[in-house]
């Protein structure tokens, strides 16, 4: 059984002080009273008791505490529904806040507090949003449906369909805030661009910070050392200056000595490092000569005559080792180039071989195909040849057939004549005619004798001969047909044989070329291998000898430097310079100089690293987050933002789909309800359509059109209809939404639905209300109005239609409100 309201009890609810009770019946319940008498409060109390909230509270126009009467500290609302359902809510002030307790009895079970709202929603099948959408009808609802712009109407219908929530959800998504978070993170990460590298290098920010301390200590130590070394260096320079002070004019000799000494020491170190103690010039010369001879042999072998000639003229001595090896090497390069050329040739030949192999494969495939064809045709060709042997060529057979036909024709004519003559003679003989029936000549006995003899002669038939001839003719014709069928095969066979012969010949040519090329490739390959081996070995040896010659050159230079140094030292000693003391100072200066260079290099590297680290670390500070955490956060936020963007687009699509679904559900109902509610003949039905329009920067919007049908089916949009007709369409539409939703409610609350309208509309509306009931669209309507006229019109219409109604009058006296109930 669908749910209706039986009784409402309110205590200290808004303007109502103390306890007030209203009973409701099926049919129309009119709550009538002047402005401020509490009509809307009654409607609000019903929504509040059902859902623990109401529209004004939800829209933050008022607070829950505002529902409690100003003079009281608590309120109570009790609603009794049919089916024994009762709901009670009590609201108590508690300081600045309110405390609510609630209970409900549904199907004999009592529910309390948190359970109440969900159980009510489950029982009614309507939540507070749905309740406000289509159970509670205000003048705003009807006006929005029948007046105002298409845009406003469309927004309202979206709201009525429950689609507004999707728009609101989209607007609620904090896209800008998330975008801000992303931008800030990007800025932070950009300012610490180097941090990822630092983390890779040191492992973590903490370790990098540790490294900063280490570097600072290290730099401190290096600076100290640099200072000490610099001081020592300057001391040594001073000492050297002092030592040389007394020896003016020997600067060049001294510089020369020091430079020679340094060069000598460097060379010694270099040779020692290379492990060279002694150089055998003879051995180098002999090895180079052996290489030269080997090279000549190889150059001649590979026909590089000019190069061989140059090398063979080369005389190697201990003094021209460098030039000799250069010449040997240049000639050897000729062989190396030849090797590369041979490799290129081999590659070229390999390509030709590949092409020939492809050709050969292709020819073999063609040959296989032709041979298979030949073998298929062979038996038919044998058959043909056997026929030729037996019957001759088709030309001959055709001639024989012609001949036979001629003979057969002649024989047939003769036979026909013989047969006719025989018939005539037998006729003459059997009838014993006196006269010849052909020439009418009298016939004698002799004639008869002659006739008998002739009959005897003519009785010998040539049928056998004819039959043989016919058989022969048939045989030849059959053979000819057979041969004509076989002839194309025989022709093809012969052509195929010819083609096969040609292809075989081409294949043989290709195979022969292949064999030649294979041989050439093998030869080149052998030459390449020989040359490669030689080139590699020769190059290794020539490099080794070249190295030894280089050492020899340095060794010779070393000996020369030693001699030169000794001469210079002698000169300085002769001038009274203590070379031992001064070289000791020079050694120390060099050592300190080297050390200073090392320290300064290290200092420079460490300082650069420290600056970089400090700069990077300062951008996040030592106590802030690791960039990898920031990166992860940024990735997450970007992904989340993208998800929300997709969700927004998805919600818009879903809204369009739900809209279509709702239109489908509602469209038919609007028409049928309109027909029930509208009693005149000038309109036959109503409907609703939705069109999607692209409004540029505003985006895509859906526009609803409510319309009626004239007789004959012509559509009339709502703007062309009278107020009464519009009202009927609006109510038809509301009721169709009401009916399209699967719920258990069977009442409609109308809070001042049509204020400020003229009496015609009022009457039309009153009439519509009674039709709601009489047509069984709804069982109970609770309507509030301040209009005496509307009350009278409803009462009149209800009486005329025999619809039950009741009257609840609200009276406002000073600040008190009273309820006077008058049930019809």
């Amino acid at each position, binding site marked *: 059984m669908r749910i209706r309201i039986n009784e409402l009890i309110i205590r200290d609810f808004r303007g109502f002080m103390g306890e007030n009770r209203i009973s409701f019946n099926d049919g129309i319940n009119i709550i009538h009273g002047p402005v401020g008498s509490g009509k809307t409060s009654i409607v609000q109390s019903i929504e509040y008791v059902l859902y623990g909230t109401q529209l004004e509270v939800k829209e933050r126009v008022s607070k829950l505490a505002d529902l409690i009467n100003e003079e009281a500290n608590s309120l109570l609302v009790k609603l009794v529904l049919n089916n024994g359902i009762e709901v009670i809510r009590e609201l108590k002030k508690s300081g600045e806040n309110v405390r609510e307790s609630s209970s409900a009895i549904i199907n004999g079970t009592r529910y309390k507090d948190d359970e109440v709202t969900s159980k009510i929603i489950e029982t009614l*099948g*309507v*939540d507070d*949003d*749905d309740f406000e959408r289509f159970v509670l009808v205000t003048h705003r609802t009807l006006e929005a449906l029948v007046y105002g712009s298409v845009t406003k109407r469309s927004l309202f219908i979206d709201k009525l*369909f*429950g689609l507004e*929530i*999707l728009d*609101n*959800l989209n*607007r*609620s*998504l*904090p*896209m*800008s*805030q*998330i975008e801000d*978070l992303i931008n800030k993170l990007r800025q932070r990460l950009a300012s610490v661009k180097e941090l990822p590298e630092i983390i890779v290098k040191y492992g973590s920010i903490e370790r990098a910070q540790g490294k900063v301390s280490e570097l600072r200590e290290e730099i401190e130590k290096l600076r100290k050392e640099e200072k000490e070394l610099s001081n020592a260096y300057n001391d040594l320079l001073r000492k050297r200056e002092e030592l040389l002070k007394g020896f003016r004019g020997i600067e060049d000799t001294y510089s020369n000595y020091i430079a020679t000494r340094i060069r000598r020491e460097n060379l010694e170190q270099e040779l020692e490092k290379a492990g060279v103690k002694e150089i055998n010039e003879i051995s180098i010369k002999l090895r180079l000569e052996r290489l030269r001879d080997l090279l000549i042999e190889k150059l001649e072998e590979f026909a590089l005559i000019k190069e061989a000639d140059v090398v063979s003229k080369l005389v190697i001595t201990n003094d021209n080792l460098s030039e000799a090896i250069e010449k040997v090497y240049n000639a050897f390069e000729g062989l190396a180039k030849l090797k590369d050329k041979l490799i290129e040739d081999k590659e070229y030949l390999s390509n030709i071989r590949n092409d020939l192999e492809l050709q050969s494969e292709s020819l073999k495939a063609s040959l296989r195909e032709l041979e298979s064809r030949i073998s298929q045709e062979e038996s038919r060709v044998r058959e043909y040849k056997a026929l030729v042997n037996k019957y001759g060529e088709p030309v001959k057979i055709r001639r024989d057939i012609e001949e036979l036909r001629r003979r057969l024709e002649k024989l047939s004519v003769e036979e026909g004549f013989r047969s006719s003559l025989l018939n005539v003679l037998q006729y003459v003989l059997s009838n014993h005619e006196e006269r010849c029936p052909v020439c009418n000549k009298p016939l004698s006995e002799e004639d008869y004798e002659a006739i008998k003899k002739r009959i005897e002669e003519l009785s010998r038939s040539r049928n056998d001969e004819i039959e043989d001839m016919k058989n022969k003719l048939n045989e030849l014709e059959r053979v000819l047909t057979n041969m004509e069928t076989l002839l194309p095969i025989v022709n093809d066979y012969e052509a195929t044989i010819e083609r096969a012969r040609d292809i075989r010949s081409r294949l043989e040519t290709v195979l022969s070329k292949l064999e030649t090329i294979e041989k050439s490739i093998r030869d080149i390959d052998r030459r390449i291998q020989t040359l490669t081996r030689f080139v590699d070995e020769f190059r290794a040896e020539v490099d080794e000898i070249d190295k030894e010659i280089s050492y020899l050159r340095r060794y010779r230079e070393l000996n020369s430097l030693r001699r030169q140094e000794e001469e210079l030292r002698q000169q300085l000693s002769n001038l009274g310079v203590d070379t031992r003391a001064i070289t000791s100072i020079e050694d120390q200066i060099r050592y300190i100089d080297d050390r200073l260079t090392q320290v300064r290099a290290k200092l420079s590297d460490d300082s650069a690293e420290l600056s970089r680290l400090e700069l990077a670390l300062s951008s996040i500070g030592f106590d802030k987050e690791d960039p990898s955490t920031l990166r*992860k*956060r940024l990735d*997450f*936020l970007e992904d*989340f933002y993208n*998800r929300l963007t*997709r*969700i927004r687009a*998805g*919600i818009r*699509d*879903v809204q369009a*789909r*739900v809209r279509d*679904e709702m239109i489908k559900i509602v469209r038919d109902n609007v028409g049928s309800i309109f027909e029930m509610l509208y009693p005149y003949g000038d309109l036959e039905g109503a409907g609703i359509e939705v069109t999607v329009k692209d409004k540029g920067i505003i985006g895509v919007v859906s526009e609803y059109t409510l319309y009626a049908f004239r007789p004959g089916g012509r559509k009339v949009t709502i703007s062309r209809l009278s107020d009464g007709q519009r009202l009927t369409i609006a109510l038809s539409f509301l009721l169709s939404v009401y009916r399209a*939703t*699967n*719920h258990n409610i069977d009442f409609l609350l109308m809070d001042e639905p049509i204020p400020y309208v003229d009496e015609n509309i009022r009457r039309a509306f009153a009439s519509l209300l009674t039709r709601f009931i009489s047509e069984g669209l709804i069982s109970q309507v609770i309507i509030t109005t301040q209009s005496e006229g509307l009350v009278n019109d409803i009462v009149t219409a209800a009486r005329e239609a025999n619809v039950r109604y009741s009257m609840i009058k609200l009276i406002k006296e000073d600040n008190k409100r009273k309820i006077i109930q008058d049930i019809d």
Partner: protein
Amino acid sequence: MGELDELIIKFLRDRLGQDAELAIKLYMAYKEGGRRGVIKAINEELSKVGVEVNENED
């Protein structure tokens, strides 16, 4: 949950694939707590990386 909710949730699932669960969570959050509910649901997600948004209008 009403019929309309079921229809919306069905379409969200059809349309949004792997984002559908988040969309449904946000839809239900809006139904129950309006914008505040949505912000709360979003902050639950954002708490995974230690950030949050507030209820101020975007």
